[in-house]
């Protein structure tokens, strides 16, 4: 199956969900049905299938398939937690549309088309950052987000257009490649909110609903970064230019983001800010991946993107469940939360393990390889051990959780399952066997009806335990991916069809046009190989 059905389902479900935003129940139901359908279509995607739409190829790949599956499943989990906590009106529809746009970007082998789609998907996020009826600050945040998206989109469009030509003449001017590379790298850093471009992202973390935070700060920028990786691999890296200054700049942004992002997450009291800055810190590793102009960086960079987005989504869902259950997300007010929410405490441990990782896990291998390839040895050692400091972040949250419960926690919902009302007892009145048989059947039917009747109330009463289970599943998924499950390494290793067939034209002296004119081979299968061969 090609990627087209996925895009159609996403467009229809997202649009209908947004049109019906006034009716939250219907809007959310349509989004959930759409996400279920998207999951099914994503599982059926063929990595080799390609389709030509108006001269633009949309090609599948193993990594795209995994991204689509994980995005749909994680979005389902996030919406489930959101429904149990706050139920933001626009979030489900926006999430569906944005996932569709991200998949469209990843399916396009032509980087020029891909950046357009990735930018359009980011703009959908403005709808949740500046919702109608929100405070004036939301409009300010939305305007700044729009500006950041426009700047990053323009930089990426210019960079891809500059090098999307026969490069025989450009090859004599390395500065052109350096500028284009730097522009796209900076665009990715701004999209991730990497330090020092983090101001707009911090405001978004403050204003956007928690359910949309992973989408705005992780999933959509990750798709943008994946497009950048493919473009760098096709257009810049094969030239084997030194580009040392540009690489140092990009690596510096990544390093600063890793270190300062962790420090900022450690000192924050607002849990949503902790999520935001931990995303910034993990995004720093993704930015480092752009500084590696070596085929060895291809697999770890794409592995890390998936590990990081799923892990941070689980953390955001955890914060959402805590906020919904106890009515606050300020850490000082959450003393004793772990006593009343042990499932969420177990989830946090899993999230922490995913985030910190250890040697042997795919997450650790990917991160350490990228740091090793991008940075000189002494600095690399320091940056490699920096994420271990995240123990302090999660330890602090857990430490607060095991204390004596505070007022907000005592008044909160808690995870203990409850049934809203006692079920009526029905004594047997029949004397004969047949009578008792009929009576038993009647009691069974009545009992079933009693339970069914109370089921909606029971779901409402047990929102917190249900949310905790959803978070536990998400954190389990994150741990699975961090361990290299679901074939994440193989998917990351596979070279996209267009990349495999388009590397040659980028070389000096070549006159063939890269990208759009090249037909992807429908029979090419993903294989473990170097993503490009340096041009001699």
């Amino acid at each position: 199956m090609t990627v087209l059905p996925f895009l159609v389902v996403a467009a229809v479900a997202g649009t209908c969900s947004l049109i019906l935003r006034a009716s939250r129940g219907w809007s959310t139901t349509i989004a959930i049905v759409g996400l279920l359908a998207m999951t099914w279509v994503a599982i059926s995607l063929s990595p080799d299938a390609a389709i030509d739409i108006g001269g633009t190829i949309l090609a599948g790949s193993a990594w795209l398939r995994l991204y689509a599956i994980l995005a749909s499943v994680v979005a389902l989990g996030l919406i489930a937690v959101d429904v149990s906590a706050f139920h933001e009106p626009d979030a489900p529809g926006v999430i569906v549309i944005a996932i569709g746009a991200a998949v469209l970007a990843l399916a396009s082998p032509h980087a020029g088309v891909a950046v357009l789609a990735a930018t359009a998907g980011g703009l959908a996020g403005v709808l949740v950052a500046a919702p109608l009826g929100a405070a004036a600050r939301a409009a300010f945040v939305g305007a700044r987000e729009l500006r950041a998206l426009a700047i990053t989109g323009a930089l990426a469009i210019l960079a891809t257009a500059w090098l999307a030509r026969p490069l025989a003449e450009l090859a004599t001017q390395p500065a052109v490649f350096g500028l284009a590379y730097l522009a796209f790298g900076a665009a990715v850093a701004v999209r991730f909110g990497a330090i020092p471009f983090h101001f707009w992202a911090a405001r978004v973390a403050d204003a956007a609903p928690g359910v949309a935070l992973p989408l705005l700060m992780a999933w959509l920028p990750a798709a943008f970064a994946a497009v950048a990786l493919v473009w760098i691999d096709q257009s810049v890296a094969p030239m084997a230019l030194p580009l040392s200054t540009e690489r140092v700049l990009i690596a510096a942004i990544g390093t600063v983001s890793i270190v300062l992002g962790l420090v900022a997450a450690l000192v924050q009291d607002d849990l949503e800010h902790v999520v935001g800055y931990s995303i910034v810190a993990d995004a720093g590793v993704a930015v480092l991946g752009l500084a590696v102009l070596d085929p060895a960086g291809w697999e770890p960079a794409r592995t890390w993107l998936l590990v990081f987005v799923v892990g941070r989504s689980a953390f955001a869902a955890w914060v959402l469940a805590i906020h919904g259950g106890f009515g606050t997300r300020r850490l000082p007010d959450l003393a004793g939360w772990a006593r009343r929410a042990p499932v969420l405490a177990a989830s946090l441990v899993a999230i922490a393990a995913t985030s910190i990782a250890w040697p042997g896990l795919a997450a650790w291998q990917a991160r350490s390889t990228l740091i090793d390839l991008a940075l000189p040895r002494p600095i690399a050692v320091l940056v490699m051990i920096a994420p271990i400091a995240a123990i302090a972040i999660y330890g602090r949250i857990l430490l607060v959780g095991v204390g004596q419960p505070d007022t907000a926690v005592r008044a909160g919902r808690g995870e203990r399952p409850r049934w809203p009302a006692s079920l009526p007892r029905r004594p047997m009145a029949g004397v004969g066997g047949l009578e008792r048989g009929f009576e038993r059947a009647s009691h069974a039917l009545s009992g079933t009806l009693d339970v069914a009747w109370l089921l909606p109330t029971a779901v409402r009463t047990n929102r917190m335990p249900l949310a905790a289970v959803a978070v536990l599943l998400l954190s389990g998924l994150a741990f699975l991916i961090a361990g290299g499950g679901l074939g994440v390494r193989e998917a990351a290793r596979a070279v996209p069809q267009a990349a495999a067939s388009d590397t040659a034209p980028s070389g000096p002296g070549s006159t063939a046009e890269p990208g759009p004119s090249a037909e992807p081979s429908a029979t090419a299968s993903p294989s473990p190989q170097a993503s490009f061969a340096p041009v001699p």
Partner: protein
Amino acid sequence: MNVALAIVAGLAVAGAVLAVSARDVRATVLGVLIVLIAGPLVASPWPSPAAILARVAAGLLAARLLTIGLRGEEATAGTRIGWPAEALAAAAAAVVGFGSHGLGAAALGPAEAQAAGFALIALAISPLVTGRDVLRLGIGSVLLVSGALFIRVGLDNPPRDGEQLVISLLTISLGGAIGVIGAAARAAGGLAASSVAIGLPVPRLPDAHRDIRREVGVEPISPKPPVAPKEPGVATEPPAVAKAPRAVPRAPRRRTPRTPKPPSGDAS
């Protein structure tokens, strides 16, 4: 040089100058619409009719979304340096773009597109950097992305139909995003309310422009302050607002005609 392309590119730049200079919201939206509609036409060869139709429809829809979000708003801050200065800056950038066509290698698109792209990006810088009201920031964003797309057309092969479709989606997303932000700002008290809320300085009214509202006798242009939620039984003080210009123009001072000096009697 293709004269027809140059004319269309000139129209696009003129629309952009109108968008960044005008203080009337309708004129601003009209300027944006001109830029968006001229976008697909600054190409050689032209896209297919279906692609042009899709781009024009997307431009119209984006303008409509903008209008919906800004319904009721009549004025934005406009430029501080006046439209002639903006036009000159755009012209200078267009000359640079035309002269540097290809940016280091033979280009596959028309030089006029690159010239228009440079002009649009030059015009976008001021609203993006100094814009305080959300409409100016939005206009700057549209012009920046449109400028980048113009340059892309000037450098690379013309976009195919599929890419034109994605550009159309991007155009609609831009219009929708600005409309949503504008509506949120308007609900909070005005286009500049978001800046007021976080303590940024309110955009000062340009001195060099006449106040178009005085002619129709409506309230003067000034950013509306955010409305504080009123609690029962608590008197709320109106927030401090920047001093607004006078609503009613002061009547021109008339000189009283001098009475002729009475002839002195000792003349005789």
